[in-house]
């Protein structure tokens, strides 16, 4: 009996490495600390009522933000581990298996559990406020999306200490990811972690799409909508078309592994290339899903901090929509070298390059928004200014990759790694950071410290170029991606060491940001006006942080920059003479509970334990039924209470 347990434990828990034990210990300690603090300060009820069951988009946004920053840390630690291992030839810091697991989790976490939730954080924190809405279209579903993401991410991260991490690359190409080559549970963690959070992402896509189409304040025609909301719409369009493909692809891979089906196996007539084909049909739109909202953020910031109306609004909108449609026509550029033929390659090379055109238009429009403006070098603007050169160069190397015959030389080399980090960090990370700096005062009521922010900014930027420019050179020197070590013979060492130094500089930059946040919580500039930066859009017309109902009275929009327009016309000081009761959704515990059931079911499927998976799924359906039968889902905030809240927040009514 005891032996059995021991046996089980040694396969169940990941063992054999001080790194893992260290992680185990720190995870356990953190858990105990959190439990202790919550109990000691009697915060359990607060946690449950205010956060776990909330359907308020602002709180959900904050929870997304916290989780995504944690994931940035986890993914970043992975990155630094990799860079440490690659710093010099023949380093034995990580062995091959660990290295493979680390780059797999790094890629997966950064894109699916860092970039996606950070994007959803911004969607949630900003879109309803910008549209003049009281919440998203489906607040309940919104909470469910968050908890699905969260549980998916937890399940995925659990693989580090239980069962073993996936190690077949962030897109898990079969047959490497099939039972025949990856018999462990790591791949199952990968599949279920992404699958569960993917359902959440799909729901968010639908939710925000409807919110934007239907919940705009009166008078806000589509062509008067702020560009960030437009970018969210175009991102959502891609989400709803791309994510079902991911769901199916992973489900098929799971059927292969679980039921012995033969979609992508070596034997039985399976065709691994079909997986590659399908996963990129999602994967390519996915990278635009994350970058387009960043474009929206830059559009807002450039205009506000140049104190000038955004240039070429219409072509900004048009180019975003064009990118989202075009992004479904380029997927083959990720496997030009799989021999699909000259016709296929020629078509997809051209369609890929074509995306550079609308993207370029956006760049020019940003430049000309600044042209004849007055540029204020505040933090959000700094990141925006850093984004432009970085993204333009990264985009241009993307165009070089799109030249199909040349891609035969770049594919799977460090040139590619450098390309996509340049667009992902320069575009996505810089963009979201800019957005966080920009909207932080709105959500929390205080600014983030400028001085520490500048340090972080320069460390990130210098670190970035040090880290990734040498990688282009390494690509030309024939260094392929995903090698855990290399020899002295090829002359790669000097470039790699520079790259590692750069990576650690970015890590220090991140530490500065953590410091900056904790410092500003205590000492940051309080913002009492609600309009920190001299904003142009509706979110700046309400107090910071906004009350639960956002807008005591839903504003009427006349112009594209609605708030700017109101300020110019002197309408901003006018207070309504009376208030109406406000209709609000009630908190619900179902999203959280249902996601826990998903977690349980997912965990069961990972280990093939039907006794766990089946009850988990029954729980999920039970929650659905419970929701369907509950009719008491909303309430009214009395007019008097609204009046009092406004009085307290604005000081004058």
């Amino acid at each position, binding site marked *: 009996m005891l032996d059995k347990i021991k046996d089980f434990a040694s396969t169940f828990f990941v063992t054999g490495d001080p790194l893992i034990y260290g992680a185990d210990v720190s995870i356990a300690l953190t858990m105990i600390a959190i439990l202790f603090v919550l109990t000691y300060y009697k915060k359990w009820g607060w946690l449950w009522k205010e956060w776990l069951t909330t359907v308020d988009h602002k709180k959900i946004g904050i929870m997304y933000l916290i989780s995504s920053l944690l994931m940035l840390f986890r993914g970043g630690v992975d990155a630094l581990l990799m860079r440490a291992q690659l710093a010099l030839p023949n380093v034995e810091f990580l062995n091959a298996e660990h290295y493979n697991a680390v780059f797999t989790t790094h890629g997966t976490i950064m894109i699916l559990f860092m970039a996606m939730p950070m994007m959803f954080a911004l969607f949630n924190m900003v879109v*309803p406020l910008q549209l*003049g*809405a*009281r*919440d998203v279209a489906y607040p309940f579903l919104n909470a469910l999306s968050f908890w699905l993401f969260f549980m998916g991410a937890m399940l995925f991260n659990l693989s580090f200490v239980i069962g073993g991490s996936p190690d077949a690359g962030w897109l898990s190409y079969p047959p490497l990811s099939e039972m025949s080559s990856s018999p462990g549970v790591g791949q199952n963690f990968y599949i279920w972690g992404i699958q569960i959070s993917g359902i959440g992402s799909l729901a968010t896509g639908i939710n925000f799409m409807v919110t934007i*189409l*239907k*919940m*705009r*304040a*009166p008078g*806000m025609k589509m062509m008067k909508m702020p560009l960030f909301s437009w970018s969210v719409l175009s991102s959502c*369009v891609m989400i*709803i*078309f791309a994510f079902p*493909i991911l769901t199916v692809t992973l489900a098929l891979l799971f059927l292969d592994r679980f039921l012995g089906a033969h979609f992508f196996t070596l034997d039985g007539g399976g*065709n691994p*290339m*079909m997986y590659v*084909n*399908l996963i990129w*049909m999602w994967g390519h739109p996915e990278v635009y899903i994350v970058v387009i909202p960043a474009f929206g953020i830059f559009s807002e910031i450039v205009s506000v901090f140049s104190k000038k109306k955004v240039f070429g609004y219409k072509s900004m909108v048009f180019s975003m929509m064009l990118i989202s*449609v075009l992004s*479904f*026509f380029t*997927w*083959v550029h990720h496997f030009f070298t799989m*021999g*699909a*033929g000259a016709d*296929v390659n020629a078509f997809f090379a051209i369609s890929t390059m074509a995306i550079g055109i609308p993207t370029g238009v956006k760049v020019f429009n940003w430049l000309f928004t600044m042209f004849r403006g007055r540029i204020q070098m505040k933090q959000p603007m700094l990141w925006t200014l850093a984004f432009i050169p970085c993204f333009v160069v990264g985009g241009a190397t993307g165009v070089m990759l799109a030249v199909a015959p040349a891609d035969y030389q770049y594919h799977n080399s460090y040139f590619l790694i450098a390309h996509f980090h340049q667009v992902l960090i320069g575009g996505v990370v810089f963009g979201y950071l800019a957005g966080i700096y920009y909207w932080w005062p709105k959500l929390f009521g205080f600014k983030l410290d400028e001085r520490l922010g500048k340090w972080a900014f320069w460390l990130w930027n210098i670190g970035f170029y040090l880290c990734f420019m040498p990688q282009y050179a390494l690509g030309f020197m024939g260094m392929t991606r995903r090698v855990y070590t290399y020899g002295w013979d090829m002359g790669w060492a000097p470039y790699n060491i520079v790259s590692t130094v750069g990576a650690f500089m970015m890590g220090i930059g991140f530490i500065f940001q953590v410091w900056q946040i904790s410092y500003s919580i205590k000492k940051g500039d309080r913002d009492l006006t609600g309009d920190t930066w001299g904003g142009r859009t509706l979110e700046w017309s309400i107090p910071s942080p906004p009350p639960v109902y956002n*807008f005591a009275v*839903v504003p009427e929009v006349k112009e594209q920059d609605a708030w700017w327009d109101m300020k110019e016309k002197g309408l901003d000081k006018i207070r309504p003479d009376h208030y109406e009761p*406000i*209709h*609000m*959704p009630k908190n619900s515990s179902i999203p959280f509970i249902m996601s826990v059931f998903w977690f349980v079911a997912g965990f069961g499927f990972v280990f093939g334990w039907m006794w766990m998976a089946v009850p988990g799924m029954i729980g999920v359906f039970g929650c659905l039924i419970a929701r369907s039968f509950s009719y008491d889902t*909303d309430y009214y905030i009395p007019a008097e209470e609204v009046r009092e809240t406004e009085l307290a927040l604005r000081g004058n009514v």
Partner: protein
Amino acid sequence: MAQPTQGHDAHGHEAHGSLKQYVIGFLLSIVLTIIPIVLVMNHVFEKTATIVIIMVLAVMQFLIQLVFFMHLREGEKPRYNVMALILGVFIVFVIVAGSMWIMGFNSMVQ
């Protein structure tokens, strides 16, 4: 909660449909199902022609259901559902046709 922008004029013409509509739709779809079955079971035309014909009939049936059962043409404007559907069907076409084109080179001909 917040006021949906285009919510207010929706009451007049909601998507209802009439018995007549349903019956016509039903009859049409039965006919459109019988034809391909007969064509295939009795080998009326040669293969490619049959494939083309039955695909066209399936698409027609799809449209019939959309119009007569799902009342696609009714409802408030702008019809975001129609736009989403058209784009969705287009993407489905891209997925299926694209996969076949790309993967075609390693699929055996029957």
